[in-house]
């Protein structure tokens, strides 16, 4: 199994760029399934984002786009920070 978490490159320190509106979350697990970095966990039927997400998130927006309850708020991190694809 490839240790994918070692295979990402980043720049700077992003500000917070993903958040959850807990009241809207139905605990459907879609975000948990779709995140390619395994950054979501469902605890007590609510979505929780990994505390280290700012260091790991690939900014793909899968979680934001799959959430049909609009419980996930996503915007791009500060310019010049976040993931860098060297061989995209």
């Amino acid at each position, binding site marked *: 199994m490839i240790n994918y978490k070692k295979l990402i490159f980043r720049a700077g320190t992003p500000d917070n760029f993903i958040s959850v509106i807990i009241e809207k979350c139905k605990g459907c697990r879609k975000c948990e*399934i779709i995140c390619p*970095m395994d950054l979501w966990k469902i605890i007590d039927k609510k979505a929780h984002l990994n505390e280290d997400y700012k260091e790991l998130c690939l900014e793909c927006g899968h979680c934001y786009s799959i959430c049909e309850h609009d419980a996930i708020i996503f915007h791009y991190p500060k310019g010049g920070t976040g993931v860098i694809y060297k061989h995209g």
Partner: protein
Amino acid sequence: MADFDIIIVGCGPGGAVAARTSQILGLNSIIIERGMNPGDKNVSGCALSPKLWRDFDIMEQMNLPHRIAKMVTIHFVGEDNIEKTSISFSPPSSDQMAYKKSMEFLTVNVYRSDFDQWLAQLAVKEGATLKTSSLMVDLLRDNHKNLKGIILEDGTEITGKMILGADGVLSTVAKVSGLREKWRPDQLAWMVHYDYMGTKDKIDRVIGTNALHYWYSATFPVGYTFFNLEGFHVGLGGILSMANKNYDPQLLLNKLLNVEGVKRQIELIGGEPREYQAHMFPMITDWENIYTDNILLIGDAAGIACPLEAEGVYYAMLSGQIAAQVAAKAIEKGNFSKNFLKLYDIALRNSHIGEEFQIGPPISKFVQDLAFNYEAGKWIVPFFNDTLYGMCNVADAHVTNARLLESRISPYFSDFFKALSEDISPMVDKILMEKPTKGSFLIENIMGKIGSKVLPILARYLAQKSMNYHPGTLKYIVENFLVPFYQARPKHYPYKKFLYKNRLEDLGNLTDVD
């Protein structure tokens, strides 16, 4: 007085071409890019199609590390994750419809980090301003709600007459302008892959120019191994709305990595995993809401990407060029209204992009049902394999094989006819409708409307019948479906000449809408 004529948000291929075109048309443009460098945030298979060389003169100057793909192979993998059969193809040997570059290669594979930066440099060379590490967060409006420009995250205000949103699938411009909040999960595909490092020498010897491999499987949506000069991508994609515990990107990617043929390619090359990447791309059947007062959307931001192959770069570049031309017209006329900017939609419809989207809905259904839904692989892989086996194996006398063929593949007839009537026939109908004839009308109505109901029932009946009465079945299919279909087809499809032929002056023909 505005700072710039045109503000372009996002410096991918679409944004860079839009900026370059603006400059050539005598306008002053700026590109806002959130990455430290263009390409930093972008991921793709990056197999550039010959269309780019057909339609963009700049491609002749491209001198980046690349691998030319002259052959594509599609591998068919069974439920046991073992490859069963494969097909390959190359550019045609002789084809009067083809243009020179399409005869030379299938694709040219490059990395986006190289390609996007090169395109950005071309725009800068023409005088465009490139502002990197800058995130656009909102639109700037005056007291009368008229659009004046954009606002960056640090509060900087940049004023401009036209704003082109080339900021990708999660476009901020689309969102803050009210054109689109976000796409539905069934309109988006996810993509995850590993980039592997390899040496040029090894990849030359193991892969050569057979640099595109698709992995069609019964256990994961279509995967790919695409080879560059000194590296390659191994990955796959699926539709967001299909996600469930068995349709999990990482799980499916690991299944692809466990296919013997994929492992063999990696091992022979000595490939080392170098980077893990994820991205989304739009899989919409037709674009809508891509322009409003002072604003046009480009490429992925507009949903303009090939609904079949998920090719995005060409569509971004061409829509970027057209958008810049339309923006230039708007500036020339001093008319930035949504009504005037409808010209953008008209120009797109009259371009090769419009041509591609003519059969958007049936193509999208075809891809979703048969490529992204790996359940289809459970019959397609054995059907295809067992047909070839039935024709060519040496386990029995050839005459016996020939007689057994129909019985061997008849278990798959039901699914085959269902796909033929529900996924393939509607697409063929649309293609034939370009030049309606009595025959295509017949096919459309019989095959498309009645056929989608009747054919699966008929297929099941035939499949059962053929188990103990086989001689008539094939003859029946040939005489009643294939022969009429062949006879009914229009005999000649002209290579459509488009009003918009990618020349800057062509837009003049389209400006009568105001």
